[in-house]
């Protein structure tokens, strides 16, 4: 069956064991999670978990049902029409051209966020595929370290 990229949001009670319950549903079936983002929803006892994974329609349908079955899960959304963003930060040696870096970051909704003694840090926030393009383009500046967040998504 055809595997496609899926973004699933899960609203859960913010308690100690909940993340392992959710990741366990994937690992126990041998499915990989491509990325996962968790943060509390402001002014509530809930957290929102955004999971990016790949699977066939049947597999994803079953996982969504199993997620619903977990006691601390309030809601599960599988997004079809969504706005999805991801961020990345890159550490670059200071001997590279600052203005070139700034221009590149700007094209991907980003900027230089820190300049230290011998390195600078640049960040971008954009659609996952565009973050990927940025990370490809930034290679010419000899990045020392790259960190990429998981996705967050909202239905349009």
């Amino acid at each position, binding site marked *: 069956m055809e595997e496609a990229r899926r973004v699933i949001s899960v609203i859960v*009670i913010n308690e100690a*064991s909940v993340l392992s319950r959710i990741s366990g549903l994937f690992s*126990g079936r041998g499915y990989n999670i491509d990325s996962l983002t968790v943060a509390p929803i402001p002014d509530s006892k809930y957290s929102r978990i955004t999971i990016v994974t790949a699977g066939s329609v049947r597999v994803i349908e079953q996982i969504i049902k199993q997620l619903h079955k977990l006691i601390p899960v309030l809601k599960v959304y599988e997004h079809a029409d969504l706005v999805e963003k991801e961020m990345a930060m890159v550490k670059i040696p200071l001997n590279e051209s600052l203005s070139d870096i700034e221009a590149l970051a700007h094209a991907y909704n980003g900027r230089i966020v820190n300049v230290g003694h011998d390195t600078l840090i640049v960040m971008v926030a954009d659609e996952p595929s565009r973050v990927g393009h940025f990370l490809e383009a930034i290679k010419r500046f000899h990045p020392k370290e790259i960190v990429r967040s998981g996705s967050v998504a909202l239905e349009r």
Partner: protein
Amino acid sequence: MQISGAQMVIEALIAEEVEVVFGYPGGAIMNVYDEIYKQNSFQHVLTRHEQAAVHAAEGYSKASGKVGVAMITSGPGFTNAITGIADAYMDSIPLVVISGQVPMSLIGTDAFQEIDAVGISRPCTKHNYLVTDASDLARVLKEAFYLARSGRPGPVHVDIPKDVTAQIANFDYSKEIELETYKPTIKGNSRQIKKAIEAITAAKRPLLYLGGGIINANAAELVREFSKMTQIPAVETFMARGTLHHEDPLLISMLGMHGSYAANMAMSETDLVIGLGARFDDRVTGKLSEFAKNAQIIHVDIDPASISKLVNAHFPIVGDVKNVLEMMMPLAKEQIDPSRYDAWHKTIANFNKLHPLSYTEEGDRIKPQWVVERIGQLLGDDANISTDVGQHQMWTAQFYPFSRPRQWISSGGLGTMGFGFPAALGVKRADPKRVSINITGDGSILMNIQELMTAVEYKLPVINVILNNNFLGMVRQWQTMFYDKRHSQTDLSIQPDFVKLAESFGGIGYRVSTKEEFDAALKDAVEKDVVAIIDVAVNRFENVLPMVPAGGSLFNMMLEYKEK
């Protein structure tokens, strides 16, 4: 009320009207056992192994319909119990399992008898808790019982560190449960139900596919009424045995890998499957793409995740099967013409005539199927029947004349050898007036044989009938058929003396090699009020038939097997 965590456990069990706890003490759970010593409200049955404690709680739950309770200590006590917990999870048996844990300050330090218990039980429980403060205990235990018995039932595990059982805190069990993220769907969707009834009226060859969910929902009586009123024939899954009376003319038989020819052919020929509390297990469906190929599917289940998991349902109905049937009854009465399926009945009668479930007597050795039939003839409705796992289990499911729900107690989903004897102890505790039989094999019985001691101590006179073929029979059967008779590690010719074994524990043993001896032994065992082993020497190479080889199509059954 300011009391200790250990006292809270006792108070909660009393509030839940628990009459028996199966368990085994140890270091981390000692505070609770100290409180058990001081109380008189419920009985504690000391099994001789933690796995057996959980199986006994399962047997008790299955026979009584109540939540079973097991209690164990941390570390090895808990890991021993996990097989039972997993078994209950697979067969949707409501249990509350309470385990001790090392004190909070030692968690994560590789302390003596420490293991991440909630980490291990997570994938095989409906829900689990690590209680970190005694003030949570009332809520947690109340939720545990509610979760275990509501919706699709299952085991709930509560892990309590030793210092929490010593901690004094406020206990109030009267608070209502608030679980806003857990609301099982009980009531069926009336539009879907209407459509399902229309599909039944349009069908020519409808078939009721009855599953274990009917037993859990206490809906067997209603199913009997529904099938009688509509005259729709029925097949039962392994878990559903006893839903219809064995003499019910509408009951075809069990279907699946070792189902009857008629049941499997009916499933292959039907144009409308009416699935009630069944989950289209691989042992039922055989090759999925060929399963009920000509049929539309109505699927009623309390668990939305079971619907369209394996077989796509045309009419999915999420709800409690009893509730859904109650909604279906008046519509069915109005709209379904019971004479419509006459031709279909004739077809099925033909299937039945062509290849009925049967076996051939040959030689001097007793046939194992005869033993099952004979127990049925002698005890019938007066016995509750537990089994272990293997050939004997399938022969029992095929040949025992079940007459009521909760008469049949067996490990279906997990297939746990060693289940039968402790489960039969729990059954006897739940239903002491009936004879509790464990039909077992010479392999399985040794997997929880220590429970002879429990049976003697608590006067739970279970009768273990060993269908002894000196083989790990089911694996031997597969080796004969699919591994060119290489009987790797399945010859169990080296055996204990089961008669002396039973006697050494204070039980009674019988060695049987003729039919007359069997009748006499069973009669005597029923009269004697003590645990028994009847060791029946049966035909060594008998196979369970019919058989749909794993991955084969239901209609492609092996009806007989000739040794090459």
